[in-house]
């Protein structure tokens, strides 16, 4: 059952990822990215990370992607115009990416006997474990993160405001 669920949602994630790269219109890419994030949330659930799956759906597929779709609509972004790319990108891009993926696959293949398997329910973490760790061991990084978010809010307001004459 685990295997079937993993295979199904991994296929959806990869298909949506390919769709993100090949779609011509940005709104198509945004919808594909939502598909990737939704299927990744299910895969997080398979890995026992309940809290992260919920946050993935709320923050990523909810908040961040709504921001993206708003900006696409606000700027009335149309289909992208194909411009002449530099020849190294055209010639070397795909082969180098294939080499990169092959290298990662080779390393994973070398490591895989020592890594074991994932069984659903073997290690479940809800909000309680995350919260306990977040507010004891990782308290300082958490506070620094809140400052970072405050700076991001101020930066976004300063950058996007209308000039007042």
């Amino acid at each position: 059952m685990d295997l079937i669920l993993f295979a199904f949602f991994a296929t959806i994630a990869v298909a949506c990822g390919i769709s993100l790269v090949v779609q011509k219109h940005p709104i198509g890419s945004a919808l594909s990215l939502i598909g990737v994030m939704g299927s990744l949330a299910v895969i997080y659930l398979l890995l026992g990370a309940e809290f992260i799956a919920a946050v993935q759906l709320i923050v990523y597929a909810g908040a961040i992607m709504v921001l993206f779709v708003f900006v696409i609509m606000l700027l009335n972004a149309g289909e992208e115009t194909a411009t002449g790319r530099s020849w190294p990108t055209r010639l070397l891009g795909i082969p180098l990416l294939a080499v990169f993926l092959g290298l990662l696959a080779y390393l994973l293949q070398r490591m895989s006997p020592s890594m074991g398997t994932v069984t659903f329910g073997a290690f479940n973490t809800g909000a309680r474990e995350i919260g306990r760790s977040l507010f004891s061991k990782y308290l300082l990084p958490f506070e620094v993160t809140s400052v970072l978010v405050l700076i991001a809010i101020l930066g976004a307001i300063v950058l996007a405001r209308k000039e007042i004459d």
Partner: protein
Amino acid sequence: MPQLNAVPLSWYLMLSAILFTLGVAGFLFRRNIITVFMSIELMLNAVNLSFVAFSHHLRQVDGQIFTFFVMVVAAAEAAVGLAIILTVFKNRRTLSIDEVSSLKN
């Protein structure tokens, strides 16, 4: 032949590698600034999957805490990045990254 209810950890990592490579491909080949930005989000998601998979493998919650921090940083990055895109569009009337080349040469 693996058992039906035990997925090898390397498969999760392989999925993460494939998604990361797709993100790099989108970053390199696309010319729309918003799509390039979405490719960066795809790469962040791929790395998050690796973090959660290793968190399960090591039976420790720390990997998920890191995923949480990556999400917060991604949200901050999206807010500031999209504000920058708005400003660029306001000044240049274009979304193509080939035409925003003031810093080149």
